[in-house]
Protein backbone atom coordinates (compact mmCIF):
# COMPACT_ATOMS: atom_id res chain seq x y z
CA UNK A 1 0.00 0.00 0.00
CA UNK A 2 1.43 3.29 -1.10
CA UNK A 3 1.18 6.72 0.39
CA UNK A 4 -0.39 9.27 -1.92
CA UNK A 5 2.13 11.63 -3.52
CA UNK A 6 3.05 14.65 -1.39
CA UNK A 7 5.89 17.07 -0.89
CA UNK A 8 7.62 16.50 2.41
CA UNK A 9 8.88 19.60 4.14
CA UNK A 10 11.15 19.42 7.13
CA UNK A 11 11.42 22.81 8.79
CA UNK A 12 14.11 23.29 11.41
CA UNK A 13 12.41 25.93 13.51
CA UNK A 14 8.92 26.60 14.73
CA UNK A 15 8.84 29.90 12.89
CA UNK A 16 9.66 28.15 9.65
CA UNK A 17 7.05 25.51 10.31
CA UNK A 18 4.24 27.92 11.06
CA UNK A 19 5.16 29.96 8.02
CA UNK A 20 5.09 26.92 5.79
CA UNK A 21 1.65 25.98 7.08
CA UNK A 22 0.37 29.49 6.57
CA UNK A 23 1.82 29.66 3.06
CA UNK A 24 0.54 26.30 1.96
CA UNK A 25 -2.98 26.82 3.25
CA UNK A 26 -5.41 23.94 3.57
CA UNK A 27 -3.47 21.74 1.12
CA UNK A 28 -0.86 21.19 3.82
CA UNK A 29 -1.03 18.94 6.84
CA UNK A 30 1.22 18.79 9.86
CA UNK A 31 2.83 15.50 10.64
CA UNK A 32 4.82 14.45 13.67
CA UNK A 33 5.37 10.69 14.08
CA UNK A 34 2.99 9.94 11.25
CA UNK A 35 1.73 6.81 12.98
CA UNK A 36 -1.82 8.06 12.77
CA UNK A 37 -1.59 10.11 9.62
CA UNK A 38 0.23 7.65 7.34
CA UNK A 39 -2.20 4.74 7.68
CA UNK A 40 -5.04 7.17 7.07
CA UNK A 41 -3.29 8.49 3.97
CA UNK A 42 -2.62 4.97 2.72
CA UNK A 43 -6.33 4.35 2.99
CA UNK A 44 -6.89 7.64 1.14
CA UNK A 45 -8.94 9.14 3.93
CA UNK A 46 -7.29 12.30 2.68
CA UNK A 47 -4.56 13.23 0.20
CA UNK A 48 -2.75 16.42 1.26
CA UNK A 49 -0.38 17.98 -1.24
CA UNK A 50 2.22 18.89 1.35
CA UNK A 51 3.29 17.50 4.67
CA UNK A 52 5.05 19.75 7.12
CA UNK A 53 7.03 17.48 9.39
CA UNK A 54 7.65 18.60 12.94
CA UNK A 55 10.18 15.93 13.69
CA UNK A 56 13.23 18.08 13.06
CA UNK A 57 11.84 21.27 14.53
CA UNK A 58 14.17 22.49 17.20
CA UNK A 59 12.92 22.75 20.75
CA UNK A 60 9.65 20.86 20.34
CA UNK A 61 10.88 17.68 21.95
CA UNK A 62 11.61 17.07 25.60
CA UNK A 63 10.17 17.13 29.09
CA UNK A 64 10.94 20.00 31.46
CA UNK A 65 9.79 20.29 35.03
CA UNK A 66 9.31 23.78 36.36
CA UNK A 67 7.85 25.26 39.50
CA UNK A 68 4.21 24.88 38.67
CA UNK A 69 4.27 21.66 36.73
CA UNK A 70 5.82 19.85 33.82
CA UNK A 71 5.99 20.87 30.19
CA UNK A 72 6.04 18.20 27.53
CA UNK A 73 7.14 19.25 24.07
CA UNK A 74 4.74 18.20 21.33
CA UNK A 75 7.16 15.90 19.51
CA UNK A 76 8.21 14.07 22.64
CA UNK A 77 7.54 10.44 21.86
CA UNK A 78 5.04 8.38 23.79
CA UNK A 79 7.90 6.11 24.81
CA UNK A 80 9.66 9.06 26.38
CA UNK A 81 6.48 10.16 28.14
CA UNK A 82 5.90 6.66 29.48
CA UNK A 83 9.42 6.57 30.88
CA UNK A 84 9.51 10.06 32.39
CA UNK A 85 9.55 9.78 36.15
CA UNK A 86 8.76 13.46 36.65
CA UNK A 87 5.32 12.96 35.14
CA UNK A 88 2.19 11.78 36.95
CA UNK A 89 1.65 8.04 36.69
CA UNK A 90 -1.68 8.43 34.94
CA UNK A 91 -0.23 10.15 31.90
CA UNK A 92 2.74 7.81 31.80
CA UNK A 93 0.40 4.82 31.90
CA UNK A 94 -1.79 6.27 29.17
CA UNK A 95 1.25 6.80 26.95
CA UNK A 96 2.47 3.29 27.71
CA UNK A 97 -0.89 1.83 26.77
CA UNK A 98 -0.81 3.30 23.27
CA UNK A 99 -0.41 0.63 20.62
CA UNK A 100 2.96 -1.11 20.37
CA UNK A 101 6.56 -0.34 21.39
CA UNK A 102 7.42 0.50 17.79
CA UNK A 103 4.62 3.03 17.58
CA UNK A 104 5.54 4.53 20.94
CA UNK A 105 9.09 5.00 19.71
CA UNK A 106 7.83 7.22 16.93
CA UNK A 107 4.36 8.45 17.80
CA UNK A 108 4.33 11.75 19.65
CA UNK A 109 2.23 13.17 22.41
CA UNK A 110 1.21 16.10 20.20
CA UNK A 111 0.10 13.71 17.50
CA UNK A 112 -1.75 11.67 20.05
CA UNK A 113 -3.71 14.67 21.31
CA UNK A 114 -4.62 15.49 17.71
CA UNK A 115 -5.21 11.92 16.56
CA UNK A 116 -7.96 11.60 14.00
CA UNK A 117 -11.35 10.25 15.08
CA UNK A 118 -11.99 6.64 14.13
CA UNK A 119 -14.88 4.57 12.90
CA UNK A 120 -15.52 1.17 11.31
CA UNK A 121 -16.71 2.98 8.22
CA UNK A 122 -13.87 5.43 7.75
CA UNK A 123 -10.79 3.39 8.67
CA UNK A 124 -11.12 1.23 5.58
CA UNK A 125 -9.38 1.15 2.26
CA UNK A 126 -10.74 3.31 -0.48
CA UNK A 127 -12.28 0.41 -2.37
CA UNK A 128 -14.13 -0.78 0.73
CA UNK A 129 -15.53 2.69 1.26
CA UNK A 130 -16.50 2.99 -2.36
CA UNK A 131 -18.53 -0.19 -1.90
CA UNK A 132 -20.67 1.57 0.71
CA UNK A 133 -20.60 4.80 -1.26
CA UNK A 134 -18.37 6.48 1.34
CA UNK A 135 -19.60 8.22 4.48
CA UNK A 136 -20.09 11.69 5.89
CA UNK A 137 -16.50 12.01 7.05
CA UNK A 138 -15.11 11.65 3.57
CA UNK A 139 -16.88 12.12 0.25
CA UNK A 140 -20.17 10.52 1.34
CA UNK A 141 -23.62 11.72 2.23
CA UNK A 142 -24.54 9.36 5.00
CA UNK A 143 -23.25 8.50 8.44
CA UNK A 144 -23.57 4.73 8.34
CA UNK A 145 -23.43 4.51 12.10
CA UNK A 146 -26.51 6.68 12.49
CA UNK A 147 -27.99 7.08 9.01
CA UNK A 148 -30.38 9.81 10.04
CA UNK A 149 -27.70 11.83 11.73
CA UNK A 150 -26.41 15.00 10.18
CA UNK A 151 -23.22 14.74 12.16
CA UNK A 152 -20.40 12.26 12.08
CA UNK A 153 -20.05 9.82 15.00
CA UNK A 154 -16.41 8.84 14.51
CA UNK A 155 -14.79 8.16 17.85
CA UNK A 156 -12.15 10.17 19.66
CA UNK A 157 -9.50 7.51 20.14
CA UNK A 158 -6.67 9.24 21.90
CA UNK A 159 -5.44 7.71 25.11
CA UNK A 160 -3.73 10.86 26.32
CA UNK A 161 -6.59 13.35 25.98
CA UNK A 162 -8.80 11.98 28.78
CA UNK A 163 -5.85 12.06 31.15
CA UNK A 164 -4.76 15.49 30.02
CA UNK A 165 -8.24 16.80 30.71
CA UNK A 166 -8.50 15.05 34.06
CA UNK A 167 -5.14 16.48 35.09
CA UNK A 168 -6.28 19.94 33.95
CA UNK A 169 -3.38 20.21 31.57
CA UNK A 170 -3.01 23.13 29.22
CA UNK A 171 -2.09 23.15 25.61
CA UNK A 172 -0.04 25.70 23.75
CA UNK A 173 -0.77 26.38 20.10
CA UNK A 174 1.36 28.48 17.79
CA UNK A 175 0.78 29.95 14.35
CA UNK A 176 2.12 32.86 12.33
CA UNK A 177 -0.49 34.93 14.14
CA UNK A 178 0.98 34.20 17.54
CA UNK A 179 0.43 31.80 20.40
CA UNK A 180 -2.45 30.84 22.62
CA UNK A 181 -2.82 28.57 25.60
CA UNK A 182 -6.04 26.67 26.18
CA UNK A 183 -7.21 24.05 28.64
CA UNK A 184 -6.84 20.58 27.13
CA UNK A 185 -10.59 20.16 27.20
CA UNK A 186 -11.05 23.16 24.95
CA UNK A 187 -9.07 21.48 22.19
CA UNK A 188 -11.92 19.07 21.46
CA UNK A 189 -15.27 19.26 19.74
CA UNK A 190 -17.89 16.53 19.67
CA UNK A 191 -17.84 16.22 15.92
CA UNK A 192 -16.18 13.34 14.13
CA UNK A 193 -15.23 15.53 11.19
CA UNK A 194 -14.07 18.70 12.94
CA UNK A 195 -12.86 17.13 16.13
CA UNK A 196 -10.36 19.81 17.10
CA UNK A 197 -10.68 23.50 17.76
CA UNK A 198 -7.14 23.92 16.47
CA UNK A 199 -6.98 26.09 13.34
CA UNK A 200 -5.41 24.28 10.36
CA UNK A 201 -2.32 26.47 10.48
CA UNK A 202 -1.80 26.08 14.20
CA UNK A 203 0.87 23.86 15.63
CA UNK A 204 0.48 22.29 19.02
CA UNK A 205 3.82 23.05 20.63
CA UNK A 206 3.51 21.78 24.16
CA UNK A 207 1.32 20.44 26.87
CA UNK A 208 1.69 21.69 30.41
CA UNK A 209 0.76 19.31 33.17
CA UNK A 210 0.18 21.06 36.49
CA UNK A 211 1.86 19.60 39.52
CA UNK A 212 -1.26 19.13 41.63
CA UNK A 213 -0.63 18.75 45.35
CA UNK A 214 -2.82 16.07 46.84
CA UNK A 215 -4.09 15.13 43.42
CA UNK A 216 -4.49 11.44 42.69
CA UNK A 217 -5.13 10.27 39.17
CA UNK A 218 -5.36 7.11 37.16
CA UNK A 219 -6.13 5.94 33.64
CA UNK A 220 -7.79 2.70 32.62
CA UNK A 221 -8.14 1.43 29.09
CA UNK A 222 -10.50 -1.16 27.61
CA UNK A 223 -9.47 -2.94 24.44
CA UNK A 224 -9.36 -6.49 23.14
CA UNK A 225 -5.64 -7.18 23.28
CA UNK A 226 -3.05 -5.93 25.73
CA UNK A 227 -1.25 -4.19 22.88
CA UNK A 228 -1.67 -2.65 19.42
CA UNK A 229 -5.36 -1.90 19.88
CA UNK A 230 -6.94 1.50 20.19
CA UNK A 231 -9.09 2.14 23.24
CA UNK A 232 -12.76 1.29 22.94
CA UNK A 233 -13.19 2.98 26.29
CA UNK A 234 -10.73 5.07 28.25
CA UNK A 235 -11.39 6.21 31.78
CA UNK A 236 -9.32 8.95 33.37
CA UNK A 237 -10.08 9.95 36.91
CA UNK A 238 -8.37 12.63 38.96
CA UNK A 239 -9.43 13.55 42.47
CA UNK A 240 -8.12 16.24 44.74
CA UNK A 241 -8.10 14.91 48.26
CA UNK A 242 -7.68 17.15 51.29
CA UNK A 243 -5.87 16.33 54.49
CA UNK A 244 -8.98 14.79 55.96
CA UNK A 245 -9.39 12.35 53.08
CA UNK A 246 -12.28 14.20 51.47
CA UNK A 247 -12.49 14.74 47.72
CA UNK A 248 -12.59 18.45 47.23
CA UNK A 249 -13.05 18.05 43.50
CA UNK A 250 -12.93 15.34 40.89
CA UNK A 251 -12.61 15.02 37.17
CA UNK A 252 -13.91 11.91 35.46
CA UNK A 253 -13.25 11.81 31.75
CA UNK A 254 -14.38 9.11 29.35
CA UNK A 255 -12.46 8.50 26.17
CA UNK A 256 -13.35 6.57 23.02
CA UNK A 257 -17.06 6.85 23.68
CA UNK A 258 -17.96 9.88 21.56
CA UNK A 259 -16.25 12.16 19.07
CA UNK A 260 -14.61 14.04 21.94
CA UNK A 261 -13.58 13.04 25.44
CA UNK A 262 -16.68 13.19 27.66
CA UNK A 263 -16.80 14.69 31.15
CA UNK A 264 -19.00 12.73 33.53
CA UNK A 265 -20.08 15.96 35.20
CA UNK A 266 -22.95 14.59 37.22
CA UNK A 267 -20.65 12.01 38.74
CA UNK A 268 -17.98 14.60 39.39
CA UNK A 269 -20.44 16.84 41.21
CA UNK A 270 -21.76 13.99 43.27
CA UNK A 271 -18.28 13.01 44.35
CA UNK A 272 -17.18 16.50 45.36
CA UNK A 273 -17.03 16.89 49.11
CA UNK A 274 -17.32 13.19 49.81
CA UNK A 275 -14.96 10.51 50.96
CA UNK A 276 -14.25 7.59 48.65
CA UNK A 277 -16.35 5.03 50.50
CA UNK A 278 -17.68 1.94 48.75
CA UNK A 279 -21.17 3.43 48.51
CA UNK A 280 -19.91 6.71 47.17
CA UNK A 281 -17.77 4.96 44.59
CA UNK A 282 -20.66 2.84 43.46
CA UNK A 283 -22.97 5.77 43.05
CA UNK A 284 -20.32 7.86 41.30
CA UNK A 285 -19.67 5.03 38.91
CA UNK A 286 -23.36 4.62 38.19
CA UNK A 287 -23.72 8.30 37.45
CA UNK A 288 -20.68 8.23 35.20
CA UNK A 289 -22.32 5.45 33.22
CA UNK A 290 -25.16 7.79 32.35
CA UNK A 291 -22.78 10.10 30.53
CA UNK A 292 -21.81 7.49 27.95
CA UNK A 293 -23.75 7.00 24.74
CA UNK A 294 -21.41 4.93 22.56
CA UNK A 295 -22.32 3.86 19.05
CA UNK A 296 -21.60 0.58 17.31
CA UNK A 297 -18.56 1.69 15.38
CA UNK A 298 -15.58 0.22 17.18
CA UNK A 299 -14.51 -3.22 18.27
CA UNK A 300 -16.99 -5.06 20.54
CA UNK A 301 -20.43 -3.55 20.82
CA UNK A 302 -21.81 -0.33 22.17
CA UNK A 303 -23.81 -2.00 24.90
CA UNK A 304 -20.70 -3.64 26.21
CA UNK A 305 -18.76 -0.41 26.15
CA UNK A 306 -21.56 1.36 27.96
CA UNK A 307 -21.74 -1.38 30.53
CA UNK A 308 -18.02 -1.07 31.16
CA UNK A 309 -18.18 2.61 32.05
CA UNK A 310 -19.39 2.17 35.64
CA UNK A 311 -17.22 -0.91 36.07
CA UNK A 312 -14.06 0.88 35.00
CA UNK A 313 -14.89 4.14 36.75
CA UNK A 314 -15.55 2.15 39.91
CA UNK A 315 -12.25 0.36 39.60
CA UNK A 316 -10.44 3.60 38.90
CA UNK A 317 -11.93 5.23 42.00
CA UNK A 318 -11.16 2.22 44.15
CA UNK A 319 -7.54 2.35 43.05
CA UNK A 320 -7.45 5.97 44.23
CA UNK A 321 -9.22 5.43 47.53
Amino acid at each position, binding site marked *: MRLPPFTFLEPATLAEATKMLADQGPAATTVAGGTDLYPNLKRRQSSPKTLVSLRRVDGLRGIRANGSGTTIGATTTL*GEVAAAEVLPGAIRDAAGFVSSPQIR*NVGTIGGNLCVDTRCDYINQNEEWRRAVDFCLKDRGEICWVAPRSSHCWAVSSTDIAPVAIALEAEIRLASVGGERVIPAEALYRDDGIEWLTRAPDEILTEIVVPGGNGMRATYRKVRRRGTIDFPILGVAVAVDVDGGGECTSARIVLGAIASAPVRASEAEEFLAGKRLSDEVIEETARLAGKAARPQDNTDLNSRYRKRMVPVEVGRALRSLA
Partner: protein
Amino acid sequence: MTARLLTLEVNGTTHHIAARDHATLLEVLREDLGLTGTKHGCELGECGACTVLVDGAPWLSCLTVAREAEGRRVTTIEGLAKGPEPHPLQVAFADLGAAQCGYCTPGVLMSASSLLETDPVPTTQQIKEALAGNLCRCTGYIKIIEAVHLAAERAGAASGPGTGGAS
Protein backbone atom coordinates in the same frame (compact mmCIF):
# COMPACT_ATOMS: atom_id res chain seq x y z
CA MET B 1 6.09 14.18 -7.98
CA THR B 2 9.72 14.33 -8.86
CA ALA B 3 12.34 12.31 -7.12
CA ARG B 4 14.93 13.95 -4.93
CA LEU B 5 18.26 12.79 -3.65
CA LEU B 6 17.95 10.71 -0.51
CA THR B 7 20.96 9.84 1.61
CA LEU B 8 20.46 6.91 3.92
CA GLU B 9 22.83 5.14 6.21
CA VAL B 10 21.77 1.52 6.27
CA ASN B 11 23.74 -1.17 8.06
CA GLY B 12 26.75 1.10 8.16
CA THR B 13 26.76 1.91 4.46
CA THR B 14 25.73 5.26 3.08
CA HIS B 15 23.46 5.07 0.07
CA HIS B 16 22.53 7.87 -2.27
CA ILE B 17 19.41 7.24 -4.22
CA ALA B 18 16.71 9.21 -5.95
CA ALA B 19 13.38 8.83 -4.19
CA ARG B 20 10.03 10.50 -4.21
CA ASP B 21 9.00 12.20 -1.00
CA HIS B 22 6.18 9.81 -0.25
CA ALA B 23 8.33 6.69 -0.50
CA THR B 24 8.34 4.77 2.76
CA LEU B 25 11.46 3.36 4.31
CA LEU B 26 10.05 -0.12 3.72
CA GLU B 27 9.72 0.53 0.00
CA VAL B 28 13.17 2.06 -0.30
CA LEU B 29 14.84 -0.77 1.60
CA ARG B 30 13.17 -3.50 -0.41
CA GLU B 31 12.85 -1.95 -3.83
CA ASP B 32 15.77 0.45 -4.12
CA LEU B 33 18.36 -1.15 -1.88
CA GLY B 34 17.42 -4.79 -2.46
CA LEU B 35 17.23 -5.42 1.28
CA THR B 36 14.28 -7.79 1.16
CA GLY B 37 14.93 -9.26 4.58
CA THR B 38 12.55 -6.66 5.97
CA LYS B 39 9.02 -8.01 5.51
CA HIS B 40 5.51 -6.62 5.55
CA GLY B 41 2.26 -8.13 6.73
CA CYS B 42 -0.08 -5.16 6.64
CA GLU B 43 1.75 -1.96 5.67
CA LEU B 44 -0.46 -0.12 8.15
CA GLY B 45 1.47 -0.41 11.40
CA GLU B 46 -0.53 -3.35 12.70
CA CYS B 47 1.79 -6.37 12.61
CA GLY B 48 5.44 -5.44 13.22
CA ALA B 49 6.83 -7.52 10.35
CA CYS B 50 8.53 -4.44 8.92
CA THR B 51 10.39 -3.48 12.10
CA VAL B 52 13.87 -2.03 11.61
CA LEU B 53 16.09 -0.15 13.99
CA VAL B 54 16.48 3.59 13.62
CA ASP B 55 19.24 4.91 15.84
CA GLY B 56 18.92 1.63 17.69
CA ALA B 57 15.17 1.86 18.38
CA PRO B 58 12.57 -0.36 16.72
CA TRP B 59 10.51 1.57 14.18
CA LEU B 60 7.93 0.40 11.70
CA SER B 61 9.42 0.94 8.29
CA CYS B 62 5.98 0.84 6.67
CA LEU B 63 5.01 3.95 8.64
CA THR B 64 8.24 5.83 8.14
CA VAL B 65 8.72 8.22 5.28
CA ALA B 66 12.21 7.35 4.05
CA ARG B 67 13.24 10.97 4.26
CA GLU B 68 12.65 10.92 8.00
CA ALA B 69 15.45 8.39 8.33
CA GLU B 70 18.01 10.69 6.79
CA GLY B 71 20.80 11.50 9.19
CA ARG B 72 19.95 8.49 11.34
CA ARG B 73 21.41 5.00 11.53
CA VAL B 74 19.13 2.39 10.01
CA THR B 75 19.74 -1.27 10.84
CA THR B 76 17.89 -4.07 9.10
CA ILE B 77 18.00 -7.81 9.59
CA GLU B 78 20.80 -7.95 7.02
CA GLY B 79 22.89 -5.79 9.31
CA LEU B 80 22.12 -7.52 12.57
CA ALA B 81 25.16 -9.77 12.50
CA LYS B 82 28.50 -8.05 12.83
CA GLY B 83 30.56 -9.85 10.24
CA PRO B 84 30.07 -13.39 8.99
CA GLU B 85 29.05 -14.88 12.34
CA PRO B 86 25.31 -14.71 12.99
CA HIS B 87 24.05 -12.64 15.90
CA PRO B 88 23.48 -14.70 19.08
CA LEU B 89 19.75 -14.13 18.67
CA GLN B 90 19.83 -15.57 15.18
CA VAL B 91 21.62 -18.66 16.43
CA ALA B 92 19.24 -19.08 19.34
CA PHE B 93 16.23 -18.73 17.06
CA ALA B 94 17.63 -21.40 14.78
CA ASP B 95 18.54 -23.71 17.65
CA LEU B 96 15.16 -23.59 19.34
CA GLY B 97 12.90 -23.52 16.31
CA ALA B 98 11.72 -20.02 17.16
CA ALA B 99 11.26 -19.32 13.47
CA GLN B 100 8.73 -21.54 11.75
CA CYS B 101 7.70 -19.92 8.50
CA GLY B 102 10.20 -17.20 9.34
CA TYR B 103 8.13 -14.39 7.97
CA CYS B 104 7.75 -12.50 11.23
CA THR B 105 11.27 -13.38 12.28
CA PRO B 106 13.25 -10.44 10.92
CA GLY B 107 10.91 -8.00 12.65
CA VAL B 108 10.92 -9.99 15.87
CA LEU B 109 14.70 -10.15 15.85
CA MET B 110 15.03 -6.41 15.39
CA SER B 111 12.76 -5.74 18.37
CA ALA B 112 14.53 -8.38 20.44
CA SER B 113 18.00 -7.12 19.60
CA SER B 114 17.08 -3.63 20.68
CA LEU B 115 15.81 -5.07 23.96
CA LEU B 116 19.06 -6.93 24.59
CA GLU B 117 21.01 -3.75 23.96
CA THR B 118 19.18 -2.01 26.81
CA ASP B 119 18.48 -5.05 29.00
CA PRO B 120 21.10 -7.71 28.42
CA VAL B 121 19.32 -10.09 30.79
CA PRO B 122 15.64 -9.41 30.33
CA THR B 123 12.85 -11.04 32.30
CA THR B 124 10.09 -12.89 30.48
CA GLN B 125 7.79 -9.94 31.14
CA GLN B 126 10.29 -7.56 29.57
CA ILE B 127 10.60 -9.81 26.54
CA LYS B 128 6.84 -9.90 26.15
CA GLU B 129 6.58 -6.15 26.41
CA ALA B 130 9.36 -5.60 23.91
CA LEU B 131 7.74 -7.98 21.42
CA ALA B 132 4.19 -6.81 21.97
CA GLY B 133 4.17 -5.12 18.58
CA ASN B 134 5.27 -8.17 16.60
CA LEU B 135 2.59 -10.63 15.58
CA CYS B 136 3.58 -14.20 14.84
CA ARG B 137 1.11 -16.67 13.45
CA CYS B 138 3.15 -19.86 13.68
CA THR B 139 4.98 -20.25 16.93
CA GLY B 140 2.60 -19.15 19.64
CA TYR B 141 5.58 -17.00 20.71
CA ILE B 142 6.76 -19.55 23.23
CA LYS B 143 9.93 -20.60 21.46
CA ILE B 144 10.55 -16.96 20.63
CA ILE B 145 10.60 -16.07 24.31
CA GLU B 146 12.83 -19.05 25.07
CA ALA B 147 15.22 -18.10 22.29
CA VAL B 148 15.59 -14.53 23.56
CA HIS B 149 16.40 -15.91 26.99
CA LEU B 150 18.88 -18.33 25.49
CA ALA B 151 20.64 -15.65 23.48
CA ALA B 152 20.87 -13.47 26.57
CA GLU B 153 22.23 -16.36 28.58
CA ARG B 154 24.83 -17.25 26.00
CA ALA B 155 25.90 -13.63 25.61
CA GLY B 156 26.22 -13.41 29.38
CA ALA B 157 28.29 -16.58 29.51
CA ALA B 158 30.48 -15.41 26.63
CA SER B 159 31.23 -12.07 28.22
CA GLY B 160 32.61 -13.86 31.28
CA PRO B 161 31.54 -14.33 34.86
CA GLY B 162 30.26 -11.40 36.84
CA THR B 163 28.73 -9.60 33.88
CA GLY B 164 25.22 -10.36 34.78
CA GLY B 165 24.48 -13.71 33.20
CA ALA B 166 22.85 -15.11 36.28
CA SER B 167 19.76 -13.61 37.82
